């Protein structure tokens, strides 16, 4: 009651709150329209592709759609012994339809992913099924090849029934689901992905460390030099940014190769003999060197922007209060640069973990990263769903790191400029 009495009205009698909302609504719409193009752009180029990637990585509808009747009839089958006649009949009908549409080859490829040995027996079934008689399909199909009489193969077909699967993610971690539905490691000689994940983390970590060690003094120098020198130095730091990534990587190839400039120099000063030149490329060293140089500006800039704001009188105060130059640095200056260190390290680490061109060109076999494997599956094997799965694993890895960082340092402490 009392609040109603207190309601403030505008001169034309509408409540103030209502007319305020009305007035602000226009502004809100205007503001939204201004950002709408960007929002749309982000949705189309970022949210949508990532969603698409997620779908693709778990999508397993292909087989489900190719054998609709089979899977319907398999619902009651417990999978312990050979399926009953009706399953065979349904499979025969589905298969005939596939032959008509000339899609039986795809089925054999897909089923072969699940279990080796499907390719040949499907081919054989196609040939023989032309002369099948009506009725008793179980006997006829089993007579085509003894594998059709093996319950393992029918179980393999049943495993492909769900429209969605996490198999690709297991494969990305060198694991798979065996016939019994247990998740097991692949045999040791076939474990390639885990090595790549670990190597990716290792290279990203050390590149971040190297970048930090090199960038800290540079950024400090930039922040303390007089303007005319610091501008020049800044240009030197930024120069790589203005050069194509490919050109920079290629120039590292010229420098680092066995007949390259660095090796020539080592030979000249007698560090190594001519027939014993150092291998600095097509291995981890190449990746480390080139990536550190290329990612260095991403560390320098956040550090610089933070250091720029630290008043030189703080170091002086630290010294005048009795701290040695080291104590003044460690207790006063360094803690104040932590937001910049955090920003720089996070930036470099995240960029390094997904780096592609440089390791592909100078990394060789031992210096490639997970992104090179993703590219390989995108371009060569055309297993896009597997590539998507690994891409998403990489993305979630980055998000985990971001989350960890937020827990440890606090994301509010980041300062990019």
């Amino acid at each position, binding site marked *: 009651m009392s609040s109603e009495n207190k309601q403030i009205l505008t001169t034309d009698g509408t409540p103030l709150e209502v007319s305020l909302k009305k007035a602000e609504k226009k502004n809100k719409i205007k503001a939204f329209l201004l950002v709408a193009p960007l929002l749309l752009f982000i949705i189309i180029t970022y949210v949508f592709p990532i969603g698409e990637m997620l779908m693709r990585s778990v999508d397993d509808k292909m087989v489900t759609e190719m054998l609709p009747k089979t899977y319907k009839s398999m619902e009651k089958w417990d999978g312990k012994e050979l399926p009953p006649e009706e399953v065979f009949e349904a499979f025969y009908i589905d298969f005939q339809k596939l032959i008509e549409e000339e899609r039986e080859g795809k089925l054999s490829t897909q089923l072969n992913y699940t279990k080796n040995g499907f390719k040949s027996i499907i081919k054989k079934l196609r040939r023989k099924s032309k002369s099948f008689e009506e009725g008793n399909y179980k006997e006829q199909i089993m007579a085509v090849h003894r594998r059709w009489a093996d319950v393992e193969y029918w179980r393999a077909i049943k495993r492909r029934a769900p429209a969605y699967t996490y198999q690709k993610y297991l494969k990305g971690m060198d694991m798979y689901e065996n016939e019994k539905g247990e998740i097991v490691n692949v045999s040791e000689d076939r474990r390639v992905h885990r090595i790549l994940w670990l190597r990716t983390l290792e290279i990203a970590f050390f590149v971040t460390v190297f970048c930090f060690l090199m960038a800290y003094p540079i950024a400090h120098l930039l922040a303390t030099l007089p303007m005319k020198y610091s501008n020049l130095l800044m240009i030197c730091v930024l120069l790589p940014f203005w050069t194509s990534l490919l050109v920079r990587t290629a120039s590292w190839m010229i420098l680092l190769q066995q007949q390259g400039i660095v090796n020539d120099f080592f030979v000249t000063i007698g560090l190594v003999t001519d027939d014993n030149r150092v291998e600095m490329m097509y291995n981890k060293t190449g990746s480390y060197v080139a990536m550190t140089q290329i990612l260095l500006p991403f560390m320098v800039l956040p550090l610089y922007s933070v250091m720029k704001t630290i*008043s030189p*009188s*703080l170091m*002086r*105060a*630290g*010294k*005048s*209060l*009795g*701290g*040695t*130059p080291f*104590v*003044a640095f460690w*207790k*006063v200056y360094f*803690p*104040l640069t932590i937001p910049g260190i955090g920003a720089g390290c996070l930036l470099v680490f995240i960029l390094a973990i997904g780096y592609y061109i440089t390791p592909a060109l100078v990394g060789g076999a031992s210096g490639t990263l997970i992104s090179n494997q993703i590219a390989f599956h995108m371009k060569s094997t055309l297993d896009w769903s597997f590539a998507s799965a690994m891409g998403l694993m990489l993305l979630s890895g980055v998000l985990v790191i971001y989350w960890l960082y937020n827990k440890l340092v606090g994301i509010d402490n980041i300062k990019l400029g």
Partner: protein
Amino acid sequence: MSVKNDFVKFDKVDKSYDGKILVVKDLQLDIAEGEFVTMLGPSGSGKTTCLMMLAGFETPTNGEIYLDGNAISSIPPHKRGIGMVFQNYALFPHMTVYENLAFPLRVRKIPKNEADKKIDKALSMVSLQGFAQRMPGQLSGGQQQRVAVARSLVFDPQLVLMDEPLGALDKNLRESMQYEIKHIHESIGVTVVYVTHDQSEALTMSNRIAVFNDGKVQQLSSPDELYEKPVNSFVAEFIGENNTFEGEVLEISGEKCKIKLSSAEILANPISVKEKGERTTVSIRPERALINPTDKMDNMHNGKIEEVIYHGDHTRVRINLLGNSEFILKVPNSSSNLDIKLGNEIKIGWNSDDARALDPK
């Protein structure tokens, strides 16, 4: 315990940054123990450079600085044991007030319970008890300034340097902080070297003031002497208000001299003139010249009122006198019986003792 008169000693100190210009020239300055000495001067006069040399952040190009009898030019800043208050406080923003104050004690490895006592004492000295756990960013400018002062004193230095510490505060706060710093100085007897370009601050706080200009100390004396008896025209001009006449010495005899102006002759006190014919600037403080003086004064001249500005407690009157149209008088508001109106002709008088004949401008 005898007080050392040269607790801090600048001995023939020169300083040049670029090898071409001397920013400090042949500086000779003694500061006694327990004294509050202010280095006052316009910007670029070399006062901050002197302070930085004393603190150890700059080294003298030539000469030597002594602290308590020891040459300190080769001692790094952290071993000098000099407290310092910086222009922008320079509090460590990532530490609490307590940690800021604990910093100088920790690096000196003072046990925690003893350090806590010292911190409590220092905070109560600047009346900031209960603020120990605040971050500097949560404090007002004045409070940050007090923390900075407390931090510079907490490790009981014998000498504290203050580099324009009140420059960033507003006028009222600045004045109250001036008294506060002065009281702290008086109560603990520490030697303070204070740098400012604000003359009223210097006059309020100091035992002695060194007026800097052009890399040199122009005058080193107590505030009253500096104001009443400036030794040259720069000091007269820089400290307080000042009326000047340019002229030439006609006669000189002991305590008096006759100066010839363009249109008249006046009597003055010869300070830096020695001979007949020398050019000179005569300086008279506004409050030393009176309108219609009742006492007998040896300079009496007529002037025309050009401007009257009301200032509350006093009125400023600009007069055209003996060819100088910028002659300022300060008339207390109690003397309202005087006939101060724009355009009036009035009689103005001063004693020749208060008209100081200094070096020409």
